């Protein structure tokens, strides 16, 4: 083991050295500097040539800065924006030059060492002073305060142009010795940097101003952070606070529509199971393409990804969309989401309490056919099928006369509104020695199902992030977190009941005498309410224990060399208890009025009794890193690291059950009958591991030319030893064009061009397919006893290896008008090779081979993303509006196809050349109005009046499977925009998002048992009175091959989130209660649909994957307070 470790370190250093060499070779030419030391020379003796034509003052300063070693220090407000200077100087002294400018602009200049301070000129003519190494040192002190006037600890106070500086203490005070004419700069993350002239003052107090842009400045990239302006990759990031605007208990849902290229689809909504699908930039493989989620440096730390994290713990979420994800190598081909949790800061203890209480009600429910429409639709169908109609005139009269009323089963089974609550407390602060962030939160959600006290979800999250400054240069972090989720549902699970309810026959009553305790069995399948009244339930108890220790040692006297390491141990356990009991429904004798309780059975593969399942797994991650950060000559910035990581994942599971109970009073195993025939058990374990060497080298020249290399070598245990290692290099470069002289600074605040290229891996495939193996099954019953069976798991494929995606990205970032208007554009292309797929389509079935995955597929995916925003501040009113849009198109470039003897048919039926998710469909061109018409032209033997008419794609006069074509069902466009504003104490956030180009399809059948459908379908289906109907006859109306009929483009735009708050701070009354800040807010999630093209059909929320029955998407209305002590 020891030897191994040393070898690994050696290997690591090799990577680092190679990276460094490559970088040096490429960029030595940039190291040459034209600037000599001008520190001790008078500006009278420094000559330069300058050509100014209608130049702004700022441009002139920038130009002079570029030609000399001086830098100008000034407040933006003193420079007249529209002032233009035109002049030409040939080898003129800098002093004269400044005098000329002073005279023409009303500015004064004071040269202090290498800084030229700019001020308003109160005197006539020009004003220029010069101080070189002659100034006396003075001691200054003061207090740095935040926007509320509270002391700001940890703010940095530096004399500009020097290395003299300090940071403020816990109360925001500082002391510093500087030369008397210094300009001091005060900076703190999240605030605008202030510059103040000392001017012989001994006390300098500064109140800092919040800077919206600054907040976004630091971006978390893989294994490090970078300034937004220095990014060379397509990485987008949001602050944790943005995610807290939505009162969702699922963090992922809160991110919807906020970031371009991050596609989140809320396909399910039931409490505890509302885990949305996350996908970055669409699909680039036909395998698992899920984004890799990294929490505080640990990949796949939580099996539920982001979903169940506490939003108040999140400092930032950044999304690595391009080759920058290659630093995460092995499962990064679907992009990487890096979550950073909050840490303690140098400050006094801050306690923050957040509460949120919400009510939820469905965004929309399906408009189901009522009894009359249903009966008519069913009768129409039967008449067309040549059957006698089910419902007689008398039956219909029951409803027209009002003796009976139609039942909307969906509404009957929902009890609204429902309640949701979230409570959160965080404590943070720190000293030089110890910094801490501690939080605890709880969230609970109830069910929308009537009478269902079983269906609920409770979550608890606890986190402690500690940072210790042990000795000089040695830092240690200790993060401990715990999360639990308890979700209970009734025996049938989450949405099956509502799915059924949406299909129930509306002529039946849902309850006897409208009593929700007396549910009927509807049309005799099973009643969700009856089930929820039974003793049976399913319960999942999930717990995740997460511990991480990290150490960083900044090696002294090396100018930035460090060694760091972390180990992380994550223990996940899930205990699931399933009590399955018979349930009862109710019947009433019409004559005697007697109500009877009728036993029924549970459908599905349920076995009565108690079933306990226990799964646990442990994920260990070890990380060692050596790195070097340094800024050479104030111009060449180098950041390098090399690292080693390994991960082991072990899981085991256990099942025990008893299937015979005399009573279900105690749903535990011991309470079952003693006969061991009814005992059941099972168990298994599995094991995987990965090993990784990786590193990165970044270089920039004056933050203008930027270059980054990264490299990763991943070994995965699931492949054969010779196919185990995958190598994933990446490179990216950026050019801050706005730093160039030729760029007019008055228009462009910032312009950056960047490009990236890299390879990313994916090993998400059934493990160990290189081995010939056998698994356990049920064998035959021999001599009245069960025997064990064993089945071959498939032919081994010794060649199976990594799937590799090559990602390229070109991006442009621009901001204008003093950073008020900003824009970011990305074009990307991903080519995926070696996609793991089975050759099921070309290998004949008679070979009987159970095929393994082979590295055979290739695929192309490309698209663009655009982000556009504007922010401004007018006195107390500040606002920001930002929008984003993303699209992608994928194309399969190789897919294993069924060989088709007819090349013409193969040409339009092969998946190769089409997008992933393009099924083969017949193209419906109309509806046969009469039986005679159904005999004309290209048709099929079953065709009759009311049946669908199809296009004869190959022109052979027969409609069959050869006439199917590929239809792309992917979403074309996803977009979102946000508006946030602050005025006085008020804050407002409005998020919108939408999608265009998904497809959905509704069925059009009606059946007597659980065969109801949409009212729209009932009213618009073909029947004898309505031969011009929009929809074909209900029921069988086709050849039995899927067609594109009823397939509609889904397009919607939602007002997703509204959040309005009011904050009181610095209030004397509150201060007495030690409250420094008090915010009260109201918010709404899934507020309303602005636009939904499915509206007329009356289907469910367009985001849900089903059309009729599903746990409804909820609108959440929320009230909460946020108190900081």
């Amino acid at each position, binding site marked *: 083991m020891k030897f191994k470790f040393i070898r690994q370190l050696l290997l690591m250093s090799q990577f680092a050295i190679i990276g460094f060499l490559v970088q040096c070779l490429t960029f030595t030419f940039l190291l040459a500097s034209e600037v000599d030391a001008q520190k001790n020379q008078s500006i009278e003796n420094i000559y330069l040539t300058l050509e100014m034509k209608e130049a702004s003052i700022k441009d002139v300063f920038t130009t002079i800065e570029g030609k000399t070693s001086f830098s100008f220090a000034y407040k933006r407000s003193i420079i007249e924006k529209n002032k233009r200077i035109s002049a030409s100087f040939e080898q003129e002294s800098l002093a004269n030059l400044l005098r000329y400018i002073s005279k023409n602009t009303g500015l004064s200049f004071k040269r202090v060492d290498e800084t030229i301070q700019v001020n308003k000129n109160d005197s006539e003519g020009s004003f220029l002073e010069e101080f070189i190494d002659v100034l006396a040192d003075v001691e200054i002190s003061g207090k740095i305060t935040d926007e509320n006037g509270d002391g700001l600890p940890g703010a940095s106070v530096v004399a500009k142009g020097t290395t003299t500086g300090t940071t403020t203490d816990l109360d925001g005070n500082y002391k510093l010795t500087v030369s008397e004419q210094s300009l001091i700069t005060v900076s703190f993350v999240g605030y605008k940097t202030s510059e103040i002239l000392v001017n012989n003052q001994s006390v300098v107090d500064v109140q800092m101003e919040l800077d919206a842009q600054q907040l976004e400045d630091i971006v978390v990239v893989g294994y490090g952070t970078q300034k937004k302006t220095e990014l060379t990759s397509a990485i987008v990031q949001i602050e944790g606070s943005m995610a807290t605007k939505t009162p969702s208990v699922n963090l992922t849902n809160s991110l919807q529509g906020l970031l371009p290229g991050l596609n989140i689809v809320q396909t399910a909504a039931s409490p505890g199971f509302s885990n949305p699908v996350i996908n970055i930039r669409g699909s680039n493989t036909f395998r698992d393409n899920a984004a890799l989620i990294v929490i505080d440096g640990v990949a796949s730390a939580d099996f539920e990804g982001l979903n169940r994290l506490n939003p108040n713990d999140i400092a930032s979420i950044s999304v690595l969309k391009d080759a920058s994800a290659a630093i995460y190598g092995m499962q990064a081909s679907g992009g990487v989401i890096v979550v950073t949790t909050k840490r303690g800061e140098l400050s006094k203890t801050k306690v923050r309490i957040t509460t949120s209480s919400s009510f939820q009600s469905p965004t929309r429910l399906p408009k189901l056919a009522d009894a009359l429409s249903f009966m008519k639709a069913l009768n129409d169908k039967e008449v067309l099928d040549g059957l006698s109609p089910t419902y007689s005139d008398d039956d219909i009269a029951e409803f027209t006369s009002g003796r009976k009323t139609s039942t909307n089963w969906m509404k009957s089974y929902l009890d609204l509104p429902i309640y949701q609550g979230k409570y959160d407390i965080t404590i943070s602060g720190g000293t030089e020695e110890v910094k801490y962030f501690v939080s605890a939160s709880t969230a609970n959600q109830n069910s929308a199902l009537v009478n269902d006290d079983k269906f609920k979800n409770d979550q608890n999250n606890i986190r402690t992030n500690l940072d210790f400054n042990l000795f000089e240069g040695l830092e240690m972090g200790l993060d401990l977190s715990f999360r639990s989720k308890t979700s209970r549902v009734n025996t049938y699970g989450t949405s099956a009941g509502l799915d059924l309810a949406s299909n129930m026959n509306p002529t039946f009553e849902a309850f006897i005498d409208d009593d929700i305790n007396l549910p009927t069995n509807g049309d005799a399948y099973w009643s969700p309410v009856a089930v929820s009244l039974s003793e049976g339930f399913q319960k999942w108890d999930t717990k995740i224990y997460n511990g991480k*220790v990290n150490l960083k040692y900044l090696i002294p006297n090396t100018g930035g060399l460090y060694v760091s390491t972390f180990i992380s141990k994550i223990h996940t356990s899930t205990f699931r208890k399933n009590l399955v009991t018979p349930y009862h429904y109710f019947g009433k004798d019409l004559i005697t009025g007697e109500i009877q309780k009728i036993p029924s*059975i549970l459908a599905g593969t349920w076995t009565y009794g108690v079933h306990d399942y226990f799964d646990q797994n442990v994920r260990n991650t*070890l990380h060692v890193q050596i790195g070097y950060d340094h800024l050479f000559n104030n111009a060449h910035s180098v950041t390098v690291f090399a690292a080693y990581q390994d991960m082991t994942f072990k899981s085991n599971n256990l099942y025990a059950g008893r299937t015979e109970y005399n009573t279900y009073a105690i749903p535990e195993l011991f309470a079952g009958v003693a006969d061991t025939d009814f005992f059941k058990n099972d168990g298994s374990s599995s094991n995987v591991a990965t090993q990784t060497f990786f590193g990165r080298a970044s270089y920039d020249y004056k933050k203008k030319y930027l270059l980054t290399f990264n490299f990763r070598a991943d070994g995965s245990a699931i492949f054969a*030893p010779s196919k185990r290692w995958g190598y994933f290099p990446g490179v990216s470069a950026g050019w801050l064009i706005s730093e160039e002289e030729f760029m007019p600074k008055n228009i462009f605040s910032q312009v950056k061009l960047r490009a990236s290229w890299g390879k990313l891996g994916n090993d998400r495939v059934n493990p160990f397919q290189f081995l010939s193996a056998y698994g356990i099954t049920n064998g035959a019953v021999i001599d009245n006893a069960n025997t064990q069976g064993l089945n071959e798991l498939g032919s081994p494929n010794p060649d199976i290896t990594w799937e590799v995606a090559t990602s390229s990205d070109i991006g442009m970032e621009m901001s204008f008008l003093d950073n008020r208007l900003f824009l970011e554009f990305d074009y990307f292309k991903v080519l995926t090779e070696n996609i793991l797929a089975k050759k099921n389509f070309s290998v004949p079935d*008679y070979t009987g081979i159970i095929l393994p995955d082979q590295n055979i597929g290739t695929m192309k995916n490309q698209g663009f993303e655009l982000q556009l925003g504007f922010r401004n501040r007018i006195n107390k009113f500040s606002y920001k509006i930002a929008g984003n849009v993303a699209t992608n198109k994928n194309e399969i470039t190789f897919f294993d196809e069924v060989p088709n003897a007819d090349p013409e048919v193969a040409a339009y039926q092969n998946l190769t050349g089409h997008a992933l998710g393009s099924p083969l469909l017949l193209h419906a061109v109309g509806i046969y109005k009469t039986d005679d018409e159904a005999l004309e032209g290209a048709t099929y033997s079953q065709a009759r009046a009311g049946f669908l008419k199809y296009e004869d794609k190959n022109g052979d006069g027969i409609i069959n499977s050869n006439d199917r074509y590929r239809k792309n069902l992917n979403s074309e466009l996803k977009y979102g925009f946000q508006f946030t504003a602050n005025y006085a104490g008020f804050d407002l956030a409005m998020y919108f998002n939408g999608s265009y180009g998904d497809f959905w399809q509704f069925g059009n059948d009606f059946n007597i048992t659980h065969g109801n459908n949409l009212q729209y379908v009932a009213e618009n289906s073909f029947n004898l009175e309505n031969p011009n109907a929009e929809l074909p006859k209900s029921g069988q109306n086709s050849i039995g091959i899927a067609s594109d009929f009823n397939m509609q483009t889904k397009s919607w735009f939602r007002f997703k989130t509204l959040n309005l708050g009011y904050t009181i701070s610095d209030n004397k009354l509150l201060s007495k209660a030690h409250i420094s800040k008090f915010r009260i807010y109201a918010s709404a999630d899934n507020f309303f649909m602005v636009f939904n093209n499915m509206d007329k059909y009356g289907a469910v929320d367009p985001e849900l994957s089903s059309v009729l029955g599903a746990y409804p998407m909820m609108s959440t209305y929320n009230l909460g307070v946020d108190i900081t002590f």
Partner: protein
Amino acid sequence: MEKIKNKSFLMFVSLITICICILNTSCEKDTLLDITPTDRFSEDVVFNDENLAQSLVYNTYESLRRLTNPAFGGYDGITDIMLWSRNISGYYPDPINFQDGFRDYIHGDISPDNVENFAGWGSYYTSIATINSYFEKIEGSTIDPDKIKIMNGEMRFIRAYLYFDLIRLYGGVPLVTTSFDFADEESLQIGRNTYDEVANFVVSESNLAIEELASAPEVMGKITPIAAKALKARMLLYMASPLNNPGNDMSKWSAAETATMAVLNSGKSLTLDYTQIPFKTNYQSDEIIFARAYNATSRIYQSDINFMLWPSFGGLGSNHMMPTQQFADMFQMADGQRITDEGSGYDPQKFWENRDPRFYSSIMYPGSGPFNFKYDDGTVQFRRQQNYESITDPTGVSWNTEPFVNPNYPDRNTGVRTFGFSMAWNFGSDGFTYADKVFGWPGKNAITRYNVLKFIDWNNIRWNTTSDVPQMQLFFRITEFYLNMAEIKIALGQEAEAKIYLDQVRARSGMPALTSSGVQLVEDYRKERAIELHLEDHRFFDILRWKIGSETIGQPIEGIVESFMDWSVLTHQLNEPGGAFGTLSFTFGSIANQYPRNWDDKLYRLPIPASEINRSGEKITQNEGYNR
């Protein structure tokens, strides 16, 4: 200062060391990535462990097509004797929506594109490949050779049976006996073998299996030498049959005769009470040569016999298979006369009187019963008689239309009724009366007005998840070989001997000896076979090999199209004491709501799936009558 720095470094190193040790508790493990999976067995282990190898063999048993596949009773539901109705959404059947494949077949729409809805293809070969691979890997095993011999016999029997099943569906198929290498793409493309080549393989493999299985323990459920003999005999009968023996080569019949005689002499005998054959209590019956048993663990859920065949009234049964009028008419009168015989005494309005005793244990007809019904949890029992109708509309659901002559139905306007009927329609509150209409709801189930009785266990509940309901899949029982022998003897022109075998089967049920001969004897034999072996997956294949598709599968299904209860003449003829019933009358005819039947002789062989032809590089040829 230096000191502190050194301290920092030492601290750093020691902390790292501690961390690594916490993490890698398995420090002794040499390579992190060399993992032996703990959730599966490797090939070396399996083929050198007697028990694991046997497990592999027992798993392969499941590849024998169950009688519940593709429908309970196999393919009986598309023949003339049974009508299959598809269970469309779990509980109730719909007469018009046949299972897609069934519909396509009887309508003549079966094609290379859709044949896999009708019959398996790939699944057979997956099992065959497992067996081929077994034979390759068991070579050189360290397991006791005597044990291997028996396992080889079992595997050989299963592979032979799979080929037998394949060729009776498709005719000649590719005969694959060794493993393919998926990486060698060209080797994957092969052509078909002829019917006789595959059939001879089945025979020769059966011979080998008979030897290899000689020392196999004779426990039920296990493949025995008698099973292998039975497979060989049945294969030879199929080879001699008109479809596969167009020149009527008599040597083929003789070969079948010899093999069948070997089965008859194997020690099995006819069980006295044939109605008890299928039940678990008689599982170890002398009658059974090879059957697979199932219990709560190994069965396919909701494919239980009781679940599939119970008359559906309310939600309680699935009623997948309905006897037809054609079937009902096959039963002779108790005295051996055919119902069409002059003076047989057959009265269509009292068709149940004086019939073959097997009629009453095979067919549930209007007024029969009462039968026990238990709720699915076994808590409630009640008894029901088979249906009658109070209305004239044979298919309608409006059971309450005028005249409201049924005293048990409420008057719609007053709501008065004498029978307590719940608004939840699927239970009746009394224990001795009838279901509200045709057995089933809402009146579309038993569209022939008949339900099956064979295999249903009235002492048990319909189905549930835990109970050990009777489950047995019959593959071979001795009765078949008495009948086979009769068929062989007729073909060989030995009618008297044929009748000896037929009469033994008839005598068991109390039927008198047959007196017919010639064509009439053939017809009597075929009806006898249909009655004895119904729901055992024989009728369809018998029709094919006898080449009688057009007069059986090609004809519309008949049944009772109308049954009428005249309440003005009350009788007690059908009921339990205390009930009041009117007089039933019946109209017979062709069932209205059935899928049209178009027989074509190409249907004697199924088409080979089109994709298989394409994937074979066109080396596989299509059967006659189908496109490509």
